[in-house]
């Protein structure tokens, strides 16, 4: 069964990697947004969101992810989703999230994307 929500976070190379477990509703969404705010305050501006272990989410939970996207954009950073389960990926696509946020197979792929962009920005 899709258990109660929990999350783990870790900063690496200027990105915060957030890995969620279980159902993301308003409570889980709010927890993700709060976690991001803490890292933003510490200077991080990219968010990698590994939702691989969240097979059930609701749109209220995802509305908090829009808030995260908004903040990332203001900071000139990036939001990248990873390890998406097929149905969740389809739902995020319906919401249009991949127009503004990235999507990678794994956290390692997402880290590589963020590193490449940092280099590109450095060149400009």
């Amino acid at each position, binding site marked *: 069964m899709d258990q109660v929500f929990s999350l783990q976070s870790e900063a690496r190379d200027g990105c915060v990697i957030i890995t969620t477990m279980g159902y993301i509703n308003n*409570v889980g969404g709010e927890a993700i947004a709060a976690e991001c705010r803490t890292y933003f305050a510490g200077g991080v501006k990219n968010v990698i969101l590994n939702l691989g272990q969240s097979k059930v989410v*609701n749109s209220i939970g*995802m*509305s908090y992810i829009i808030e995260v996207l908004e903040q990332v954009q203001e900071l000139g950073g990036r939001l990248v989703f990873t390890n998406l389960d*097929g149905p969740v990926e389809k*739902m995020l696509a319906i919401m249009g999230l991949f127009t503004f946020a990235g999507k990678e197979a794994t956290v390692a792929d997402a880290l590589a994307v963020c590193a490449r962009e940092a280099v590109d920005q450095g060149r400009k």
Partner: protein
Amino acid sequence: MPEPIALHLLLPRVPDIELVAIEGLEKLAHHLGLAAQKVGEAKLIVAEAVTNALEHAGGDRPSVRVEFTVTTDEICIFVQDNGNGFDPAGVQDPELTGKLHAPSKRGWGLKIMKSLSDDFRIESGAQGTTIIIRKLLS
């Protein structure tokens, strides 16, 4: 026609109670060997429908009726609340660009349910709201 399997629930307003309905659907789907992607999409529909219904269910006794009727061909989802109803035609289709920088980023439930289903019907009135969704499996 394969014999349908039915599961009925009457849910109180308790945190995460929609997961009980979702778990029930999972058991039916597993028994019938249904495709994970379709079942996963059906679960997301249920999460949206039950969340809405519980939010708007009314009176002293908010309660939400959920019924699944499943065959190897399709999943039917029925969700009914005893709230005050609303006018579905009056709800605007959400757009992400409109939600970014807006005070409320919500308003995606109906769009998601419609997009993930093959047939979406809603009846709403002063006695409450009923949604009936069909999801084909092939």
